[in-house]
């Protein structure tokens, strides 16, 4: 069966530090992969999605970037975190367009 792993679950980082959140999917091939963020009191906001290795679409211009070095690996990064990057980050995958399965999420706090 398919599973999705996202880590770390919680992260506290100082302003200006780098970021790397990782997401991997098992049990499927060539999935669509997504990174979402949920800020306090707001709905889920799509940050990036990928339909294949090396193919990244950015939805919101900001301080973050994403990469897909392998078919089932999706990485969210930043070179220098801002206070506004705090939030809850969710990775998701699907095999038919809209995200169907989500990870447990990462709670990111910027100090």
């Amino acid at each position, binding site marked *: 069966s398919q599973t999705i792993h996202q880590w770390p679950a919680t992260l506290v980082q100082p302003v200006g530090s780098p970021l790397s959140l990782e997401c991997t999917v098992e049990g499927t091939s060539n999935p669509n992969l997504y990174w979402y963020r949920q800020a306090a009191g707001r*709905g*889920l906001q*799509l940050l990036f*999605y990928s339909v294949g290795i090396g193919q990244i679409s950015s939805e919101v211009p900001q301080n973050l970037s994403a990469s897909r070095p392998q078919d089932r690996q999706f990485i969210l990064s930043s070179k220098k975190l801002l206070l506004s990057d705090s939030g809850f980050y969710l990775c998701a995958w699907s095999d038919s367009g*809209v995200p*169907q*399965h*989500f990870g447990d999420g990462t709670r990111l706090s910027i100090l």
Partner: protein
Amino acid sequence: AQRVTQPEKLLSVFKGAPVELKCNYSYSGSPELFWYVQYSRQRLQLLLRHISRESIKGFTADLNKGETSFHLKKPFAQEEDSAMYYCALSFSSGSRLTFGEGTQLTVNP
């Protein structure tokens, strides 16, 4: 721009009562609409999509283009329906979803 509004952040009903979670959208084209659910200590998951016209766990949702609504309904709520529900809209190939802020449903015994 597309927008999804869930007017109720909290909704509480008694077991066996009907429940309706409201969702309104604004979009000039022909959207696809979805409901996602997150049960306590579980992951967010897709519940249903309007194009399937399906009933999942007793829930149904009808797209009303005139009222631009996609309300989620269940005639007899169960305690295990307690969860966070998100309405979402897709306006392109499906990869781009706009989510509402969610409604926390509590079904009391």
